[in-house]
């Protein structure tokens, strides 16, 4: 159950960042999680709900984006998305595959509530920046 350690690290990083910005609370933590890690998304959510208590992230949502594993042959440039029974030998030419993605475990951003004197212009900017990018 190392998801507890991982959840603690996530909250620690988010809280430090939120404090730097004098945030009152953290609303969202956006995480990119590769499928070629040892972290299970559901177990991480469970651990997060336990670890966030009593922190600035007490009411935060952990938003996990799953990044699929992609491997590529450096020789024939075949690209594969291994899912189960992972084989990192190129089925086309027999050379080793390189892992292109799937090892991600990164916090992308946090969304926080801050107390601020707000000018109409900065309110416009904030709204613009906090809008999700698709």
């Amino acid at each position, binding site marked *: 159950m*190392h998801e507890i*350690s991982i959840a603690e690290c*996530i909250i620690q990083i988010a809280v430090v960042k939120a404090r730097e910005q004098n945030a009152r609370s953290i609303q969202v933590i956006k995480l990119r999680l590769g499928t070629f890690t040892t972290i299970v998304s559901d177990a991480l959510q469970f651990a997060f709900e336990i670890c966030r208590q009593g922190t600035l992230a007490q009411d935060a949502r952990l938003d996990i984006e799953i990044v699929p594993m992609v491997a590529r042959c450096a020789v024939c440039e075949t690209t594969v998305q291994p899912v189960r029974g992972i084989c990192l030998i190129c089925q086309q030419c027999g050379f080793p595959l390189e892992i292109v993605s799937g090892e991600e475990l990164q916090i992308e951003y946090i969304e*926080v509530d*801050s107390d601020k004197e707000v000018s109409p212009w900065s309110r416009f900017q904030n709204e613009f920046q906090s809008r999700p990018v698709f």
Partner: protein
Amino acid sequence: MESVPERISVQTSVLNANQQTAAANRELFAGEGLLVMNLMSAPGAGKTTLLEATIKSLRGQFRVAVIEGDLQTDLDAQRIQALGVRAHQITTGTVCHLDARMVARALDKFPVNDLDLLVIENVGNLICPASFDLGESLRVVVCSVAEGPEKPKKYPVMFNKAQVVLINKIDLAEASGADLRELTKNVREVNPQATIFALSSKTGEGLDAWTNWLKQAIEVRALAAMASV
């Protein structure tokens, strides 16, 4: 004053703090010209017995010490100390892996300036230790034949991150009906670059190939440190 929602870019690896401590450990080890091996396996694959056999083979040629990681007890450290080798036990309580900070803390009490090889025997577990860099220069995964040939396929991250895979207990291959060729093929599939040795710590079969490889690695490491001074 008004509450304003705000998005703050972070772009930080979750394991950032561990990676920084691991980098500091690694720098300390490099400064000493020390080869550090992170030894990992499932519980019962034979890490400690293999370590005992390896230590016996290095005896008189290299200075070795061991950091043992276990949830409970210092039984493994006692076994190593019985060979006349310095050993330090980290008991993690309920934590299923060692992390770089636990190793850094152990190093405060456990000097490594008089060594050629430091072995860190991780908690027996094929999942969690894979994520935590300790600052080692060599990751070695032990897998015993009786665990079944599909083990590397079931725990691909752990096997993928190893430089060396030791297939242990080959003396039991026949009795347990294990297909050694299938096991080796599966290691290759998840880690085409791994160096693989098949051996038995008990009978000593295949052990020399591994320990000769390790002796060479220790020497190369020490020479590299001398060259960089």
